């Protein structure tokens, strides 16, 4: 039973337009959410995060929105660039802290973004 769901396996967007990647979760104990970007044959690279006490976090072209009541978050990329083409993973912390350190991350299956020139 997946606790973090990315229901769109792929997304295609024109360069310069907005890319919106969605993520839903089921566990209300999740208190920290992250987006990772992954190129082929590389490990995931951290992109942006948001704590459950916020509903928006922005970093340059990337903005993450969190709707706790709907258990939904989204990543907006504006404007999209061809170099953004990659697989994007949504991840959530399970809220378990080991003596103050973060617990493990639970990942969605990813959304493959293609930005066309």
């Amino acid at each position, binding site marked *: 039973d997946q606790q973090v769901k990315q229901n769109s396996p792929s997304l295609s967007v024109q360069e310069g337009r907005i890319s919106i990647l969605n993520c839903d979760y089921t566990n209300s104990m999740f208190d920290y959410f992250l987006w990772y970007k992954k190129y082929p044959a590389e490990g995931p690279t951290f992109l942006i995060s948001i704590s459950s006490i916020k509903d928006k976090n922005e970093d340059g072209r990337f903005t993450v929105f969190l709707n706790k009541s709907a258990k939904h978050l989204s990543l907006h990329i504006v404007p999209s660039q061809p170099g953004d083409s990659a697989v994007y993973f949504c991840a959530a912390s399970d809220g378990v802290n*080991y003596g*103050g350190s973060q617990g493990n991350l639970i990942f969605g299956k990813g959304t493959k973004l293609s930005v066309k020139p």
Partner: protein
Amino acid sequence: GAGVSQSPRYKVAKRGQDVALRCDPISGHVSLFWYQQALGQGPEFLTYFQNEAQLDKSGLPSDRFFAERPEGSVSTLKIQRTQKEDSAVYLCASSLDGVNTEAFFGQGTRLTVV
């Protein structure tokens, strides 16, 4: 080092063979995680270390999987008597101590069991 380093990058093992995968975390990172990523899936948690202590091994799929981090730095994931279903990319990640800190991933080891 500058980032998380994993070796080997690729490993082909015959079914039944034992393998050992190495992870060098970022210097000073207290937390270390191992993940397994099957084709078309997201990474799935295997085990977690805080320094040398293995605090969570709930994700290890069977007793053939064993991980250690004896000096609180380098970690090794060992898989005994490999099976075809063990074929996956094994990712290591490390993070600083403290809550709500991002984990930095290595490039992974792609294990293929034939």
